[in-house]
Each structure stands twice: as structure tokens, then as C-alpha cells.
């Protein structure tokens, strides 16, 4: 296992104080991760040394920018073992990836009577775009339920997945339960009925090895900002034939081949789906993030997170009145969403913040999940490559202070 204290020195923010005299304990990586200096520096190098628009330029700056932009695409493609960089399409965030597929693939392939299968534990990003699509087309949404322990109830899957199912879109890892779903099995089951598959890998790609050739989904989405990369950039991976067939999503510069006043033809993949000036610095930053994670090794990242999650679940079980939702550590990513009897999650988060501990409180963009549990909110601590057992200990101390303030 790598030396977590060495990793910590890679992150400038980890030496910042949350409040004067109070060191920061950042346990909110599932919402957005911190960035190592290498990522910040890569973007600075672009802005300070070779900032220019890409693709259309002949001068040195534009040439360098294009090489850096397309070079990053190649490394990101390799990071998820995509067969070809042209299958890596840059979007703003995972959310846009779902919307792109819903508009471009959905509007041409979904009609009344078709079914779209999701799960009850989806992030709004993998729910609302399909609701909009279903409303427009008359398709029906169906949901794989989850069990009390936060794992999927697959007992009725053979009914839920049927010949009307055109799409099965599900999360690889729940951002609330932490559940690691059996993605490969689900994809295979969907393929048997001829359904297209889409994987929400927003909480998977940052935390464990993801190999799209092994998993073989039709579409897969993730966000840079959750994996050491900058904001404003994310990836839609797609099967090549599907992407070739799909009409463009947005129109504009760079995505065209030829434009006349009467009509236009489209550029090749991946640019067909990248209209306008791309997020150049952001792609370069994500490229640096992927380099950083590769150098740590995603196996190592997973191992460290499993170690910390085990430790945390153990430690949290000692806090009276605290209940972590989700499955046992062996099926769980580095996320602990919990309730504490007698204290509202908001108050927990605020009191922890007074101790420098950053956790999230709310529905974590998974209202239906919370609703089913009869909760409006949970508090959530989430762990990443730089989380230490000392930080988990501080969390437990902080929670005990919450209990004290609330006279529990």
C-alpha cells in the first residue's frame, strides 16, 4: 500500500486550515475531490505557456494546445481501456453525458411503450434526463428496487428486463450507500434482451480500476472533478457503432464537416459531439489527473479506500445512536452516509465543520433513495486516496461533540 502521508503532500489544500487554528479534515470527496499540485500545474502551464484555441490553428501555440488536448484524450481513453480515443467524448460533467445520450440516442430510439430501466438508488443525473425523455416520448420508466441493506434486489430482474426494455442505465457505485453493483452481470442480462446499457461510473472511475472493454457497456459516464481533475469536464464513453449512428447533440463550430446556409454535414467522432470551443484547460487537467492516479495505481487506490472504509465503519459503529446506511464493507465503496438519532444531518455537518471536518448533509442528489428510507437527509462522510485513520478518529470525536451539544 502506498504511503498516504506522502500522497497528502501532493495536495496543496490539505495543509490549509478550515478555520483559524483548525486543520482541515476533508471527508467530502464523493461530492468533489481535491486536486494534486500536478493537476493545477498542468492547467497553469497551458494558460501561461501555450494558451490558444485548438484544431483550427496553424501557429505554434495552437499546435501545442491541440497536441495537449488530443494527447490527454488518448491517455484518458487508455485509463478506462477504451479501444479507441474517438470513443471518449468530452462533456461538462457526468450529468451532461446522460443528457447527451437522452437527447441524441434517446430521441431517435425511444418511443411510446418502450421501457427504460433504472434503479431506485440513482443519482438525479441518471434519473431526470430519462424522465424528460419518457415524458416526451411516452416511454415508461421502471426501477430495480433496493433491499434494506442498500444492495439491489435482483429477484425480479428477469421481469423488469424484458423485450420492451430499450435501455438499462444504472450506477456502478451508489453515492449514498456506497454499494458496488454487479455491473458486468447487469450488462450481460440487459444484452440478452437487446437493451442498450449505460453505466453511471461517477463514483467508480475515481476509486477503482474500470475497464470498459471488460465491462462492455454501450455508454459510460464520469466526471473529472471527482477524480482529482478540474471542474467543468467529464467523459461520455460510447460504443463506436452506436456513436457513429447517433445524430449530433449540439450544433456549432468544430462538430461540422461542411456548412452551407441550406444544411450541414458532421465531423468524425469524437468531434461530432463536441460543439464549439472545447474546455481545453480542463481536458489537459483531467489528463494530468489520470496520469496522477495511474502512477498511484488504481488497484492501490481501491485497496487504500477499502482499508479506510473498514476502519471507519468499525469506528462509527461505536458512536451511540449512529446508523450507517448501505451494505457491508466488502460490497461498499468509500462512502459512509449515516443518521444520528436526535440530531439533524444539517446540524451534524455544521457542528463537524466547527471542528474543521467537512462532510455533506442532505439528499446527495438521491431524493428517491432517501424517500424510500423515510429520510429527508443523511450526513455523509466520504474517503479518498489521502484519507487517514487519524482523520476518521477526528470524525468520531466530532460526532461525539455533536451528541454532547444536542444533549444526547
Amino acid at each position, binding site marked *: 500500500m502506498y504511503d498516504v502521508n506522502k500522497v497528502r503532500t501532493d495536495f496543496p489544500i490539505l495543509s490549509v486550515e478550515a478555520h483559524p487554528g483548525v486543520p482541515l479534515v476533508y471527508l467530502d470527496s464523493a461530492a468533489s475531490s481535491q486536486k494534486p499540485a500536478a493537476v493545477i500545474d498542468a492547467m497553469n502551464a497551458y494558460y501561461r505557456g501555450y494558451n490558444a484555441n485548438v484544431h483550427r490553428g496553424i501557429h505554434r501555440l495552437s499546435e501545442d494546445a491541440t497536441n495537449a488536448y488530443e494527447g490527454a484524450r488518448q491517455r484518458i481513453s487508455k485509463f478506462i481501456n477504451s479501444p479507441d480515443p474517438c470513443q471518449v467524448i468530452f462533456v461538462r460533467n457526468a450529468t451532461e453525458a446522460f443528457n447527451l445520450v437522452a437527447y441524441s440516442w434517446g430521441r431517435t430510439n425511444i418511443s411510446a411503450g418502450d421501457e427504460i430501466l433504472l434503479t431506485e438508488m440513482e443519482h438525479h443525473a441518471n434519473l431526470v434526463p430519462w424522465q424528460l425523455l419518457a415524458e416526451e416520448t411516452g416511454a415508461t420508466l421502471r426501477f430495480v428496487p433496493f433491499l434494506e441493506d442498500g444492495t439491489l434486489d435482483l429477484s425480479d430482474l428477469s421481469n423488469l428486463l424484458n423485450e420492451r426494455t430499450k435501455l438499462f442505465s444504472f450506477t456502478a457505485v451508489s453515492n449514498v450507500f456506497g454499494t458496488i453493483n454487479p455491473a458486468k452481470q447487469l450488462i450481460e442480462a440487459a444484452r440478452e434482451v437487446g437493451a442498450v446499457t449505460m453505466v453511471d461510473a461517477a463514483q467508480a472511475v475515481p476509486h477503482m480500476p474500470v475497464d470498459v472493454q471488460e465491462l462492455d457497456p454501450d455508454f459510460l459516464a464520469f466526471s473529472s472533478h471527482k477524480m482529482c481533475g478540474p471542474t467543468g469536464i467529464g467523459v461520455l464513453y460510447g460504443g463506436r457503432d452506436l456513436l457513429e449512428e447517433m445524430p449530433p447533440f449540439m450544433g456549432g463550430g468544430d462538430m461540422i464537416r461542411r456548412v452551407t446556409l441550406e444544411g450541414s454535414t458532421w465531423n468524425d467522432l469524437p468531434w461530432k459531439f463536441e460543439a464549439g470551443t472545447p474546455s481545453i484547460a480542463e481536458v489537459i487537467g483531467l489528463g494530468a489527473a489520470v496520469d496522477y492516479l495511474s502512477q498511484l495505481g488504481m488497484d492501490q487506490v481501491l485497496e487504500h479506500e477499502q482499508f479506510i472504509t473498514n476502519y471507519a465503519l468499525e469506528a462509527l459503529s461505536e458512536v451511540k445512536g449512529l446508523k450507517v446506511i448501505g451494505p457491508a464493507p466488502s460490497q461498499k465503496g468509500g462512502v459512509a452516509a449515516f443518521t444520528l438519532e436526535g*440530531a*439533524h*444531518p*444539517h*446540524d451534524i455537518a455544521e457542528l463537524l465543520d466547527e471542528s474543521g471536518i467537512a462532510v455533506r448533509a442532505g439528499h446527495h442528489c438521491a431524493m428517491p433513495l*432517501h424517500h424510500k428510507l423515510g429520510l*429527508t437527509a443523511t450526513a455523509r462522510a466520504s474517503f479518498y486516496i489521502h484519507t487517514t485513520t487519524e482523520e476518521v478518529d477526528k470524525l468520531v470525536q466530532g460526532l461525539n*461533540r455533536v451528541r454532547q*451539544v*444536542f444533549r444526547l
Partner: protein
Amino acid sequence: MDSSVYREQIIDLYESPLNFGELEHPDFSYEEDNPLCGDVIRIEVKLDENNRVAEVGWSGDGCAISQASASLLTEEIKGKTLDEVKAFDKDELLALIGVPLSMARVKCALLSLKVLKAGAYGLPDPSVMRDQ
């Protein structure tokens, strides 16, 4: 713990809220939640013949800040005219709460006022109250 926003008063009100409960035949009532956090507050008001607040009850679910705010607000408006309720300023409420709040928590604190005003104006659409 001096720096904490969780003064004794807030915790007291969280444990023992004021005016908690529902009224039989309110003159107006309104319910809204802060969808970003799930706090939900319902306020019901009975006016007397002079259009003054005769009875007020609130119910709901939420954090200590939103709950304390509902207690303090409902206590404060008793006896006020409908026009005074409509004119009730958010800074007055924040002063009643009396602890410095971050932007996110200001929303918790003001949910009760938003609900009250929406009810007082008889508005069907909560979103028009956004700027209050």
C-alpha cells in the same frame, strides 16, 4: 464551544418548540420545503376580527436552525396584523435567532418566513417568494 452557532437557546427550542401543532380551521396555511435539504415547514394562522394573528401553529421537520426559527417567528407574530405579517422583514427574524449564520443556513432560518408570507399573500406558487 463559544464559537458554535448552537447556543443553548437553539437547542432548547429544538427540544421544546413553541407553537408546535396544527389548528382546526386556519384562515390561511401554507407548507413548503427547502428541497435542497429536505426541511419542511407548515404554518397555520387564525386571524381575529381585526385581521390580527389570533392563533398560530407550525409543524414540520428539519434542522435545529429551521425549527428554532419557526418557534421564534410564530411567537413573534402573535397579535400582529396581516399587513404587519406581510411586511415582516427577514433581518428581524435573523436578529431574533441571534447567531451568525452561513449562507446555506440562512436558507434554513428563513424557510419559516417564506412559508408564512406565502400563506399571508395567499400565493399558490412558492417560487415567487424566492427573493424574500
